[in-house]
C-alpha cells in the first residue's frame, strides 16, 4: 500500500517554518552559534531563538506544556494546517521525543536541591507521553496518540510506526514526527560522553571532533489512498521504504563496520523495491562524532557497493536535534525531491582517511531527485532508515 505525505512542518535553529528552513539550506547558512541561555552559553548549539512565551504568542499556541511540547506544537500545526477533521477518517498522532518535559523538571529539581520550595504541579509536564498528548490537543487529535522514545532515531521510528498503522488499516491518516528541546540534562549528558566539538561540527571530515547539539521539531502528515479520496489533499511525496534494526554492539557506540546501519538501509531498500543505484541523495545521520561518521561511511560503501550516491549531513546547519532529527531531516528530504536540490554538508575540508568519501560540498540545483534515503541512528544501536520518493 502506498503511503502519501500531504503535509510537513518544521522548526529548528535555521527557521521557524518550512520556507525559512529551505531558505537557510539554500543559502548554506548555519545557525549553530554560542548559546543564548545560561546552560547553553558555553557551547555552540543550534538553538531556536524564541523563548517559550514568544513561541506561544507567535504561533498562537493554546495548550501549555514543556518547551519540547511547544516546539512540537509549532511543527505539527504547520504540518496539519489546511487539514480538516473528518468523522470518516481515523486520524492519529505519533511523536518521538527523548527528553520530554525534562526542561521543566530539571529546573524544579534544582530549586528543591537548593532548598527552595518546588512546585510539584510542574512535574505533570514531565512524561514524554504527555508532550504528545499536548501536541495532539493543540491540533485537535484524539483517539490514537503514541510516543516513541528511541533516543536519536525517535522521530524516524514514529514516522515508520505511522506508516505501518496506515498499511494495516488501523489508521487512515496520521501526524508523525518528533520534537526535542535543549536541556541542561542532555547538554551535560553529551558533555560527559566527551563527544562535543567546541567549534562548528564537521560531519564526515577527517578532522571531525564531535557534535553540536540543537533543538527543534519536524512533523509530516501521512495518508492512505482512502484518506486522500476524502481529504483531496495535494501529495508532496511518498514514503516508500522504512526499516529499523539493532546494532546490538554497545550501549552508545556504533559497531566499527556499521552492522545495524547496513541492515536497516538494506531492509528499507528492499521494502521500497529499489536498487541501491536508484537513490539520488542520502541525508546521513552524520553527527560528526569520530565513531558515527566512520561507521556510517563504511555502511554506505557496503550498501551501495562502493558507488555511494551524493550524501550530506544537514546537522552542520541545525546541530544534532536528537529525537527531532528524523522529523526535521524528513522534511529536508521532501524539500530535496520537490525542489531538485541536494543540500551541502558544511565545514567539510578533507575526506575521512579510511573511506575517502566526499560529501556534497556546495548546493546542487536542478537535479532530478526521485528517491532520497534518510538515516537516523540512536543510542543503544537503534538504527532506522526512511526512503522518500517522488510522486
Amino acid at each position, binding site marked *: 500500500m502506498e503511503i502519501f505525505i500531504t503535509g510537513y512542518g518544521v522548526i529548528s535553529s535555521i527557521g521557524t517554518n518550512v520556507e525559512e528552513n529551505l531558505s537557510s539550506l539554500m543559502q548554506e547558512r548555519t545557525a549553530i552559534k554560542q548559546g543564548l541561555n545560561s546552560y547553553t552559553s558555553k557551547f555552540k548549539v543550534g538553538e531556536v531563538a524564541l523563548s517559550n512565551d514568544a513561541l506561544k504568542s507567535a504561533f498562537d499556541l493554546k495548550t501549555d506544556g514543556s518547551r519540547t511540547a511547544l516546539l512540537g506544537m509549532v511543527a505539527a500545526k504547520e504540518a496539519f494546517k489546511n487539514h480538516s477533521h473528518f468523522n470518516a477518517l481515523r486520524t492519529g498522532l505519533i511523536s518521538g521525543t527523548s527528553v520530554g518535559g525534562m526542561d521543566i523538571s530539571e529546573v524544579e529539581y534544582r530549586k528543591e536541591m537548593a532548598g527552595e520550595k518546588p512546585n510539584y504541579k510542574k512535574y505533570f509536564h514531565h512524561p514524554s507521553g504527555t508532550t504528545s*498528548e499536548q501536541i495532539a490537543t493543540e491540533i485537535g487529535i484524539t*483517539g490514537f496518540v503514541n510516543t516513541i*522514545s528511541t533516543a536519536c532515531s525517535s522521530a524516524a521510528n514514529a514516522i515508520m510506526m505511522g506508516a505501518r498503522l496506515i498499511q494495516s488499516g488501523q489508521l487512515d491518516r496520521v501526524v508523525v514526527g518528533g520534537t526535542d528541546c535543549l536541556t541542561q540534562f542532555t547538554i*551535560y*549528558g553529551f558533555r560527559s*560522553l566527551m563527544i562535543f566539538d567546541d567549534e562548528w561540527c564537521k560531519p564526515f571530515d577527517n578532522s571531525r571532533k564531535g557534535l553540536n547539539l540543537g533543538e527543534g521539531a519536524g512533523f509530516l502528515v501521512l495518508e492512505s489512498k482512502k484518506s486522500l479520496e476524502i481529504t483531496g489533499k495535494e501529495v508532496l511525496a511518498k514514503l516508500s521504504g522504512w526499516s529499523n*534494526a539493532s546494532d546490538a554492539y554497545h*550501549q552508545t557506540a556504533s559497531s566499527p563496520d556499521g552492522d545495524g546501519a547496513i541492515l536497516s538501509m538494506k531492509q528499507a531498500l528492499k521494502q521500497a523495491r529499489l536498487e541501491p543505484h536508484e537513490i539520488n541523495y542520502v541525508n546521513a545521520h552524520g553527527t560528526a562524532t569520530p565513531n558515527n561518521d566512520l561507521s556510517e561511511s563504511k555502511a554506505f560503501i557496503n550498501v551501495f557497493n562502493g558507488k555511494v550516491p551524493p550524501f550530506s549531513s544537514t546537522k552542520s546547519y541545525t546541530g544534532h536535534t536528537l529525537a527531532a532529527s528524523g522529523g526535521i531531516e524528513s522534511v529536508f528530504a521532501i524539500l530535496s525531491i520537490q525542489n531538485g536540490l541536494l543540500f551541502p554538508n558544511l565545514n567539510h575540508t578533507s575526506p575521512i582517511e579510511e573511506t575517502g568519501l566526499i560529501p556534497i560540498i556546495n548546493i546542487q540545483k536542478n537535479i532530478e531527485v526521485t528517491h532520497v534515503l534518510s538515516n537516523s541512528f*540512536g*543510542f543503544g544501536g537503534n538504527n532506522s532508515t526512511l526512503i522518500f520518493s517522488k510522486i
Partner: protein
Amino acid sequence: MYYIHKIASITHQDSFNQTDVNDSLVEIAEDTVLISPDYKKYVLPASLRRLSPILRMAVAAAKECQEAITIPVEAISVGTALGCLTDTEKFLNVINTVEGEILSPTAFIQSTHNTIAGLISLELKNHSYNMTHTQNNLSLEMALIDSMLCCDEGKEFVLLGVADEAIDFLNKLKPIVLPENSIVTSGTTFFALSKKKSTAEIGFLACNSIIKPKGVEVEIVLFLRELKIEINEIDRVYTNQNSLDFPKEIVVNYEAYSGLYFTANAFGVHMAHDWLIKTAKKYALIVNSGCNNSLGLILLKNDKAQN
C-alpha cells in the same frame, strides 16, 4: 490471535516463574518490596553492578521469555511510562553537584527510555526490530499494538514487555500529580508472542487505546461489538477502575496486587492469563483507565475454553 508462549513478571508479588501468579497474591501495602530473582543467573556480575532495578528486572524477564522459545525473537517491543527513573535522578544530582568538567556518563547513558530495549538486544545479541513506546498509562497497549503489527508482518516470535520503576521522589508528587492513596511500586512483565499456536492456549485477541474516550462503558461496548462478542460473554474483568458496569463478582482490581506503576495493567494481563488457564474460561477483559483521560482495553481469549 497472538498467542502467549511465555509470560514472566517481576513485581512486588512472588510472581516470577510461578505456575499461577494468583496462588500467592497478597494485597499491596506500604512496606511491600520488589521480589527479585537471583539476577546473577541472567547478567554477568561485572555488568550487573552498573544496572538499575528497572534494567535488571527487564533483562531477567526478557531472557526468561527468549529462553522459553527455541528460536530468536524477530522483534523487541517495549513499553515504559516513565523510563529509567533511578538513573535519571542520579544524573540530575550529578549535574547539580559535581564541580568541574569530568562527569561520569553511566547514569546519562542509562537514563534514556530505550536503554531497556537496547540492553535486551545487546544481552540477546539480537539485531532485529527494536522499539520503545512511552505513552503514560497506555504504554503496554502501544507496545502490544506494535507487537501485533510485527506478527502480522510475518515475524514469527515477538518479545513484548513493559517495565517501570519506583523511586522515593514519586511519593512527593502525591496528591498533586499522583493519586493520594496510591502505593507506588515497580514491576515488569514480558511476553513471547506468536501467531503460531503450538502448545499455547491463551492469546491476545484485540487491543484498543484511546485518548479522550467517549466514556468507559461506551468504549467497552464499541470494542466488543467490533469483535462480535456480547458483554455477558466476558468471564472476568481486570481493572484499576472502581466502578465498572459489570457484576461485582467477576471484577478484580489488579492494582490492589500490583501497586501503582503505569504499566501495571501488564500484571493484570498476567493474572488474567493464569486464571483463564486454571478455570478453562474463555474471555478476560483488561480495562485500564488513566487519570489523564485515557483508556486501554485488552481482550484475552482461551482457545481451550469449555463452553
